[in-house]
C-alpha cells in the first residue's frame, strides 16, 4: 500500500496502487466483514495477511490463520450463521481440504454474506498442481465471480456479499496468481459503519439440520435458489455484452483472460466483433447465452485451463438450438498458464491473421536462445536450517550429489519451504503431491518394499495441518518409517504466519499457547523421538543413521527457527532499544592456502553465500564467503573436512573501547 494507510482509512475518491489480494481484502472491508480466516497459501496469502496486520486499527474484526482449510471455511460458516459477514481465503488446492464444508454450504445456506476467495495458480509457479477449482461448483453450486482487474477485484468482492445474502449461497471469488499479484490503481469506496457488527446466532433447524429427508429437502431448496440466481444473472451488471459491427463472430471470456483478450485484439488491430464478458462464470443462464448467440455463426470461448466455460456453453448451445459453431480449446492451451502471448497466437490462428513482426521475431529469438541458457531454480535462503537438514540426510544415507549412483533410501516429500530440497543439488525427494502425502504414501511403501528404508519429511505447519492423524495412523498400524519434522516455528513460505510451534513473535512477544511438539508426538504413541539442532550436521547425520537401524515409527524433530525471522527479531529488538544479545562480532572465512576445492561446502552444502571468485591473474579462481550475504550460521565451518574455513571472532567493545550504549549504535 501507499504512504498513509489508505487500506483502513481510504474513502470514496481516494486512489492508490494496490495489490490484487489487497483489493479483495479491501472489498470485503467495504462490505463490512467481521470475520476473516485462511490457511496460508500462495498466491492467496496477502488477502488475510493484510487484514490481520491491520486489525488493531479496525473495529470488530476477527482474523484467524486456521490450522487447515476445513477448519477455516467452517469458521466462516459459523460467523455467517451468527449474522456476521465472513471472508475465507485459500489457494486452489485448499478447496480439496475444504470441499466438505463447501459441499454442505449449499444445503444449509448462509445467514450473513459469506465469500470464499480462491487464489488459483495456472502454470503452478507456486503449487504442486494447477487444478481449476471452478469445476467444484458443478456439485457445490457455489456461484463463481471472476474479476479481471484490480478495480473489479475490490468491487466484485464487495458486491459478492450482497449476492450471497440474497440467494443464500457462499460465493466464490476466483483470482488467478496473475490477478492476486497484479499491482495497479484502485479507486476506493466508502466503508460501512463497523459498530453495527454483532453476532447473534438464531436457531434455524429447517436449514441447518441435515439428516435423511431433511437433507433431501435442502437439496431441492438449493436447486431452486440456483434457478432464482440464474434469472437474476440474465441482465445483471456483472455480465456485459460489447456489441460489434456486422460481424457474425462472437467471443466469450472472463477474468484476467478477458483482459488479455482485449489487449490481444488491440495488438492485432481487430475491433469489430461482439464480446461477452462474464463476471459470473457459474451459474450461466441459458437466456443470457442465447441472447448473445443471436446473429452469430461462430462463437469462440477464450479461457484458461480445461474449458469450464466451453463445457457449460456447449450444453446451453445444444439446449437452445444454436445452429452455429462453438470453438474453444482448439485454439487455447488447456495446460499451463494462458499468457497474453497464447491469446494473441490463438486469435491470430483463428482469423488467419499474422501477429506483428516484432511479436514473431521475439518468440523465435526466445525459443532459439532458451535451450542454451543455464537453468536457474530457487534454493534455500542463506542460513536456512533446511539446507543443513538435507545435507545431513544425504550424508547419513551415504549419498553425494556429484556421484551417479542411485540413492537407495526412499525420501517422501511434502509441502513447504523444504520442498525446494527436491531440486538440484540435493535431489532429495522421490515424490511430492499434496499436504501430508509424504508420510501417508511412505507408510505403505515401508510395508511393501522391505528392501528400502523410508524417510518421510514434513514441516511444522504441514504437520499441524493434517499430519497428526497421519502419524497416529502410522503408529497404530506398525509402520516402519523415519519421520523427520522440520520445525522452523513458522509457516515460512507463505510469508511467516504463526504455527503452534511459534515461541516468540518477531517483536519478541511470547506466543500465548506454544505447543510442546515432542510431548505431542510422544502422546501419539511414538517412543523413539529426539530433538536436534539441524545445524549440528555431524550429530544430525549420526542420529539419522542410528534411527534408520531401529524398527517402527521413529521421529526426529529438526528444531531451529527460520533464520529470516531470527534476523528480523534481532533487528527489531535492537531498533527498539533492546539489548543486543551479541557483544562480539564474528565472521567465517575460507583460507585460500588450505582450501583444496573439495566442493563439500560449494556443491554438497551449496550455500549461496559461498561464491567463486577470480584471482587477480584472472585465470584461476577460488572459493570465498561473501560477508555481505553470510549470516554466520556456521554450517560450512562444520562440514569442511580440511579445516580450511575458520571463524574469526573479535570483540568490538575491546577493540574500540566502547561503552555498551555506543556499541549498539555502531552495530
Amino acid at each position: 500500500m501507499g504512504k498513509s494507510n489508505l487500506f483502513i482509512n481510504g474513502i470514496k475518491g481516494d486512489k492508490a496502487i494496490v495489490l490484487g489480494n489487497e483489493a479483495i481484502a479491501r472489498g470485503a472491508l467495504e462490505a463490512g466483514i467481521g470475520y476473516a480466516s485462511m490457511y496460508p497459501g500462495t498466491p492467496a496469502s496477502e488477502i488475510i495477511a493484510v487484514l490481520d496486520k491491520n486489525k488493531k486499527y479496525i473495529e470488530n474484526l476477527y482474523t484467524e490463520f486456521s490450522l487447515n482449510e476445513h477448519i477455516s471455511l467452517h469458521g466462516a460458516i459459523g460467523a455467517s450463521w451468527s449474522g456476521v459477514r465472513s471472508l475465507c481465503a485459500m489457494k486452489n488446492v485448499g478447496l480439496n481440504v475444504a470441499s466438505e464444508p463447501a459441499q454442505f454450504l449449499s444445503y444449509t445456506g448462509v445467514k450473513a454474506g459469506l465469500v470464499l476467495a480462491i487464489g488459483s495458480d495456472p502454470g503452478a509457479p507456486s503449487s504442486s498442481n494447477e487444478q481449476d477449482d471452478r469445476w467444484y461448483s458443478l456439485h457445490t453450486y457455489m456461484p463463481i465471480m471472476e474479476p479481471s482487474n484490480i478495480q473489479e477485484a475490490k468491487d466484485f468482492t464487495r458486491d459478492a456479499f450482497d449476492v450471497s445474502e440474497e440467494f443464500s449461497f457462499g460465493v466464490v471469488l476466483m483470482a488467478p496468481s496473475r490477478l492476486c499479484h497484479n499491482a495497479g490503481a484502485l479507486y476506493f469506496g466508502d466503508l460501512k459503519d463497523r459498530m453495527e457488527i454483532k453476532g447473534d446466532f438464531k436457531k434455524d433447524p429447517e436449514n441447518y439440520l441435515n439428516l435423511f429427508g431433511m437433507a433431501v429437502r435442502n437439496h431441492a431448496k438449493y436447486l431452486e435458489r440456483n434457478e432464482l440466481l440464474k434469472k437474476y444473472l440474465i441482465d445483471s451488471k456483472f455480465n456485459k455484452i460489447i456489441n460489434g459491427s456486422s460481424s457474425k463472430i462472437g467471443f466469450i471470456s472472463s477474468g484476467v483472460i478477458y483482459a488479455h483478450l482485449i489487449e490481444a485484439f488491440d495488438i492485432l488491430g481487430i475491433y469489430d466483433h461482439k464480446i461477452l464478458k462474464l463476471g459470473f462464470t457459474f451459474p450461466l443462464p441459458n437466456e443470457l447465452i442465447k441472447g448473445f448467440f443471436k446473429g452469430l455463426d461462430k462463437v469462440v470461448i477464450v479461457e484458461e485451463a480445461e474449458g469450464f466455460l466451453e463445457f457449460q456453453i456447449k450444453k446451453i448451445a445444444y439446449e437452445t438450438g444454436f445452429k452455429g459453431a462453438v470453438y474453444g480449446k482448439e485454439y487455447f492451451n488447456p495446460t499451463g498458464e494462458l499468457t497474453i502471448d497464447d491469446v494473441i497466437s490463438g486469435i491470430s490462428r483463428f482469423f488467419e491473421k499474422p501477429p506483428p513482426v516484432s511479436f514473431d521475431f521475439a518468440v523465435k529469438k526466445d525459443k532459439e536462445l532458451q535451450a542454451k541458457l543455464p537453468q536457474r531454480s530457487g534454493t534455500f535462503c542463506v542460513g536456512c536450517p533446511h539446507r543443513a537438514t538435507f545435507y545431513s540426510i544425504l550424508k547419513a544415507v551415504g549419498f553425494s550429489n556429484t556421484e551417479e549412483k542411485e540413492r537407495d533410501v526412499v525420501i517422501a516429500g511434502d509441502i513447504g519451504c523444504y520442498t525446494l530440497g527436491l531440486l538440484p543439488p540435493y535431489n532429495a525427494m522421490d515424490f511430492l503431491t499434496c499436504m501430508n502425502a509424504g508420510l501417508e504414501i511412505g507408510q505403505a511403501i515401508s510395508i511393501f518394499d522391505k528392501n528400502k528404508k523410508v524417510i518421510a519429511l514434513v514441516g511444522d505447519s504441514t504437520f499441524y495441518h493434517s499430519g497428526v492423524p497421519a502419524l497416529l495412523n502410522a503408529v497404530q498400524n506398525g509402520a516402519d518409517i523415519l519421520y523427520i519434522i522440520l520445525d522452523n516455528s513458522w509457516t515460512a513460505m507463505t510469508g511467516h504466519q504463526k504455527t503452534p510451534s511459534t515461541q516468540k513473535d518477531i517483536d519478541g512477544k511470547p506466543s500465548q499457547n506454544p505447543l510442546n511438539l515432542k510431548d505431542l508426538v510422544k502422546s501419539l504413541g511414538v517412543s523413539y523421538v529426539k530433538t536436534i539442532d539441524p545445524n549440528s550436521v555431524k550429530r544430525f547425520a549420526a542420529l539419522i543413521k542410528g534411527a534408520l537401524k531401529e524398527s517402527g515409527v521413529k521421529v526426529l524433530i529438526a528444531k531451529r527457527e527460520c533464520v529470516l525471522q531470527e534476523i528480523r527479531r534481532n533487528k527489531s529488538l535492537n531498533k527498539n532499544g533492546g539489548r543486543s544479545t551479541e557483544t562480539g562480532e564474528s565472521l567465517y572465512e575460507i583460507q585460500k592456502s588450505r582450501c583444496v576445492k573439495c566442493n563439500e561446502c560449494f556443491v554438497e552444502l551449496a550455500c549461496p553465500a559461498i561464491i567463486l571468485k577470480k584471482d587477480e591473474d584472472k585465470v584461476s579462481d577460488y572459493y570465498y564467503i561473501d560477508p555481505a550475504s553470510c549470516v554466520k550460521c556456521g554450517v560450512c565451518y562444520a562440514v569442511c573436512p580440511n579445516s580450511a574455513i575458520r571463524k574469526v571472532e573479535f570483540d568490538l567493545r575491546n577493540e574500540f573501547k566502547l561503552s555498551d550504549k555506543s556499541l549498539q549504535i555502531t552495530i
Partner: protein
Amino acid sequence: MKKFNIAIIGLGGQGIITMGTVMKNAALSFDLRDVSGSERRGGAQREGYVETFVKYIFYENKSEMNDPRKNMHSPMIESGGANALISLEPLETLRGIRYLNKDSVVIFNETPYIPISVRMGKTSYPEIPFIVSELQNVTKNIFYYDFDRISLEKFKSLTQKNIIALGALFAKSDIPIEPSAVENILAEGKGAEENLRAFEIGLNL
C-alpha cells in the same frame, strides 16, 4: 492512446518488486493515465527468478478511457512488447529477451549470480560479450553497468542498486514520465535521502 511497457527482471531479494511499486506510484496522480502489471513472485526464494511488469497507458481523453475496447488491463507484456527492460542479473537479461523489439531500451547489471546448475559444473555461465551480442541481434539500445559495485561504493550496501537502475532508465530511454514523479514517490518512502541520491546517480550514468 499510447502505451509504455517496462519489464523489470532479476532474482529474489534484489528489490525487483519495489522497483515496480515505485514506478506504478509515479503514474498515480495523473487522471488520464492508467497503470497495471503483475509480479511473478511465487516460489521467489533466494536466487529464484522474479519479474514485474509496469504498463503505462496514456489516454487522449475521457471517452477513450471509458471505451471497453481501449481499456487495457492485461497484467502481462506480450513478446516484443516492452519499451524498456531492466535486468539486475546478466544471465536473466537473456531470459527477458522475449520482451524486446528493435526499439527497446535494455539496461542491465553486470554482477552475475551463479545458478546451481553452473555451480555443479553441469553448464557454464555466459560471458558478458555473448550476452551483449545476443541482445544486439534484437536492439542496439543496450546499456550495462555494475550496479552492485556502484551501490557498494556509494552506499556501502547493495540495497540501492535497484533505484540506481531506475535512474538509468530515465537517463537512457524516452520514458514519458517525468523524473520528478519518481522523486516525489521516493521522497515519501523509507530511506528517502539515500534513495533520492541513488536515483540521481542513475540519472547521471
